């Protein structure tokens, strides 16, 4: 945050002003998305605890997790809560607000359309966490077939083991995955290909309540301090020992060899060697690309890969990450949200882990000069087969034009349409009323919440209500959703790559993941839009251990579950 550089301010493309790129026709009469959180029972308001002290932790939270905790086939919502920041341990404070879990009770109406309703099941599920929470990560760490929940915080982290009966147990202590560092985003991934999910935790700054610094804006008014006023604290890599316990291997893995104020993290195979690497978005410090060396160690290739710094060689105020194959060339590209004035960056992968800063040629630079971005991900909102972008925006320093207003940090969220030719066009105006309303957005999680074949979004608001953006769909375009089943280890196929093969068109590669974005966890199921074609040739799954399987004669416009060993084995 707070970084402004002469270079970055000019990353734009005037030729694109009044672009000739055309937006596709939209499905809903009220816009692509309809905001409906409160109407369907998703009642949650984030509490920053702000008291005028300008504690930097107040403005960073919080996140959301979208996951099917009760294995009933729909996505439930876990919302991370903040609370008062008075230096007292929240866990010991009676009446401290708690994070909330909402069960999805979606049904089908007589017209065949989904009817959404959420029920607050926090207490009965045993996840009434009293902590100044930040983010959430989801994974089946104990390979028992249900999804567990890891919650980061300004304070100790918490691991909730899913008991498989609608309840959770706090297993933090026995699992050994907690410390006192200020943690933000986290990612479950199987870096050593041993079949269980390891855990990477991004940590941020050494800020403490007692050590709060007084910062002002340029006009002398009190304001939040930037990251340079504090020191980064080290990230953590925990190896899953397969027995319910983790070992901190930050040192031995080499992850301790670079500092950074971590806010976003994602695990993907960036050099296509079949092993999962880690990308960390750092605030005002170089981003890191931890390349997996296949021996339990990682090396930071960020600067040399071209994915750590801007064109002037300066670190940016990076927050959220979207990792996906936006250009359908078979590799994972990275989109990173930054602070106002810098522009957001798209790092285009050459397939070998070398990246090109493509913010100018894709048109994303000029679209993002005036905003500060947090949660984001690649998703195909209109099912045309090309990955689009949503960005949750909100300032971290007072906006001049909002001077005198309470919480003068509000910005509008953005929706960018992938035109399929390497360029993006701003589709925010078609997104619906929710995109016309400025808020202080932070986390964003993506998934098909109403199981109707398109991707919906949950957006958190710093100090405000959660937003649920229900996708109204794009008539005429087809889709497929894929869930994986592996056994006995890595039961959900975390990290596997799924290729949707189509005649005469590039294969659509998607990664099985919940990580990325900012402080948030998204739908584990892979979704792919197919455009007007209702047929595909095959689905290829490249499992994390490197083996490949192919399934043919798969029908579309449905969720398919692919069980390992039931397809045709391929040699890579």
């Amino acid at each position, binding site marked *: 945050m707070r970084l402004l550089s002469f270079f970055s301010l000019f990353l734009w493309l*005037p030729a694109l002003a009044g672009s000739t790129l055309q937006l596709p026709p939209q499905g809903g009469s009220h816009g692509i998305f309809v905001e409906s959180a409160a109407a369907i029972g998703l009642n949650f308001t984030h509490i920053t605890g702000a008291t005028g002290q300008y504690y930097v932790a107040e403005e960073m939270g919080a996140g959301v997790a979208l996951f099917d905790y009760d294995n009933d086939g729909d996505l439930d919502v876990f919302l991370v809560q903040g609370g008062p920041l008075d230096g007292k341990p929240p866990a010991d404070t009676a009446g401290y607000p708690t994070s909330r879990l909402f069960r999805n009770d979606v049904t089908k109406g007589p017209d065949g359309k989904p009817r959404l309703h959420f029920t607050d099941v926090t207490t009965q599920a045993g996840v009434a966490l009293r902590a100044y929470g930040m983010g959430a990560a989801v994974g089946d760490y104990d390979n028992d077939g249900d999804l567990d929940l890891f919650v980061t915080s300004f304070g100790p982290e918490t691991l909730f083991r899913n008991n498989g009966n609608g309840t959770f147990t706090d297993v933090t202590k026995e699992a050994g995955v907690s410390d006192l560092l200020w943690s933000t985003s986290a990612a479950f991934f199987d870096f050593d290909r041993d079949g269980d999910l390891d855990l990477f935790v991004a940590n941020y700054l050494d800020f403490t309540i007692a050590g709060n610094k007084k910062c002002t804006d340029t006009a002398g008014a009190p304001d939040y301090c930037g990251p340079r006023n504090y020191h980064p604290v080290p990230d953590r890599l925990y190896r899953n020992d397969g027995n319910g316990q983790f070992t901190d291997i930050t040192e031995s893995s080499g992850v301790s060899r670079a500092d950074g104020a971590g806010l976003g993290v994602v695990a993907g195979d960036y050099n296509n060697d079949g092993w999962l690497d880690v990308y960390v978005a750092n605030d005002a410090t170089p981003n890191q690309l931890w390349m997996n060396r296949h021996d339990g160690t990682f090396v930071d290739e960020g600067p040399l890969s071209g994915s750590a*710094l801007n064109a002037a060689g300066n670190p940016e105020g990076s927050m959220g990450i979207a990792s996906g194959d936006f250009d359908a060339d078979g590799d994972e590209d990275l989109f990173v949200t930054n602070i106002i004035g810098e522009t957001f960056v798209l790092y285009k992968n050459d397939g070998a882990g070398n990246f090109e800063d493509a913010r100018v040629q894709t048109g994303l630079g000029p679209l993002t000069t005036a905003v500060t971005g947090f949660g984001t991900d690649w998703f195909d909102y209109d099912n045309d087969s090309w990955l689009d972008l949503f960005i949750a925006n909100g300032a971290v320093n007072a906006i001049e034009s909002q001077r005198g207003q309470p919480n003068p940090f509000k910005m509008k969220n953005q929706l960018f349409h992938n035109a399929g030719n390497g360029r993006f066009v701003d589709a925010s105006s078609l997104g619906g009323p929710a995109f016309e309303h400025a808020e202080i957005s932070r986390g964003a999680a993506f998934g098909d919440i109403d199981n109707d074949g398109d991707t919906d979004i949950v957006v958190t608001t710093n100090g405000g209500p959660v937003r649920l953006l229900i996708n109204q769909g794009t008539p005429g375009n087809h889709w497929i959703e894929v869930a994986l089943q592996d056994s006995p280890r890595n039961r959900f196929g975390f990290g596997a790559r799924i290729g949707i093969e189509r005649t005469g068109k590039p294969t659509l590669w998607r990664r099985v993941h919940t990580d990325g974005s900012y402080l948030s966890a998204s739908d584990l199921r892979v979704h792919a839009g197919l455009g007007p074609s209702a047929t595909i040739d095959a689905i290829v799954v490249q499992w994390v251990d490197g083996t490949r399987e192919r399934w043919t004669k798969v029908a579309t416009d449905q969720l398919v579950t692919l069980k390992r060993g039931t397809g045709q084995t391929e040699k890579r």
Partner: protein
Amino acid sequence: MLLTLKTNTAALLLTASLFAARTSAQTPKLSLDAYPAEIRNDLARPYENVRVHPDDPNAVGSLARVFQAWEQWETAHEMYTRAITLAPTSFDWHYLDACVLERLARPHDAVAHLRDALKIRPEYVAARVRLADALLSAGQLGESRTIFAALVREPKAEPLGLFGLGRILAAEGKHEEAVQAIQQALALFPEWGAAHYSLALSLRALGRRDEAQQALQRHVQYGTRWPGVPDPVLSSVSDLRNDSAARFRRARSLADQGDLNGAITEFESVLADDKSSALAHSSLVKLYGRTGNWAKADEHYRAAVALGSGLAELHYDYGVLLGLQQKWDEAQDAYRRAIAVNPVYPEAHNNLGQILERNRQFEAALGEYRSAASDRPTFRLARLNVGRMLIALGRLDEAITELQKITQPRDAEAPRYLFALSTAYVRAGRKDEGIRWANDARQLALHYGDTALAAAIERDLALIR
């Protein structure tokens, strides 16, 4: 236009329409109530001037400059727009508005004003550099190349011109030629971090990864250093401010440049206006400590503590100061106070460890060094101290394991770490490995010109052999 302005004397009750409505660019409605008193004070005189001369472009532009100096970008832009309407051929208002528009993330508009400005003063180098940079970043390589090529012929802008040409060549995929151009720029300004970074990326594209790594190391070494060109028009804006925040920034800048007395004067002037500035007191603790004026440093430390300052750095700096005076017990207390405020404070843990080590409390010292290394794993000095303590405690295998972690990177600090590792090996009875590491340390010390360390290692080697 409606302006409302508060001043300390409340002498200005300016709610009348100040500007005639006949001009095409209406000056916007302003509400200045939300601004702190210091801004309002700075605005008072130029504002009064505008009130008296509403159609005077210099009056309007001067008011805009104050808003710009205070980084009130939107208001500054609106004022410059008015000034440009009144004086379309003024270079300053076009140029300064371009600078403001850059900060407002409106680069397209900024370029338009840069073009207008350069029609008026085509020789103004800083504006040419800005325009060329903007066009390059926008992908308009042809026009950018023309401007950069012309800048190469300007002595003050030659490195900028060469670097610009190098970046254009890189954008075109002509990395061999890009490397040449960037290296020419670096020959003129060797400490240019951004140029080293661009060089690294072009070398990577050419497959010259080792050279690219070396360029990256130089990029890290030089950071944001950049060859500036004189820009008196923009400098005149920043010179407008003399408030405490501006003086604070100047003081920090002077301290960074090594002008300790100048920095002290600035910080003292801040405190003359605002005795409650804990940050100023804290900064003066460090500065007076660096000049050896213990009494003044102590005075400011106590003043900051009396203000209830929770700054961990304050206690840490005071600890360093006490250490320099060999007041070890008091220094220890200061470090503990710093750690109480911020438990994740590697430097404080490390320095506390050193005091405990002086007191021969090796286990306790080891704990502090370990905390420092855990808080910041890249803190190699802390790791060295962990290794040293383990050697002192006779835990040689652990020492070897710890010290092996800091054998990379092989920079100017590395010889000390390699030497420590060799010591651990020798004491562990693994003489051959110790000699090998000692030789390595000596050669690396010579490589970096540290002949004293090389000689010390040589003496030890002679004893071992």
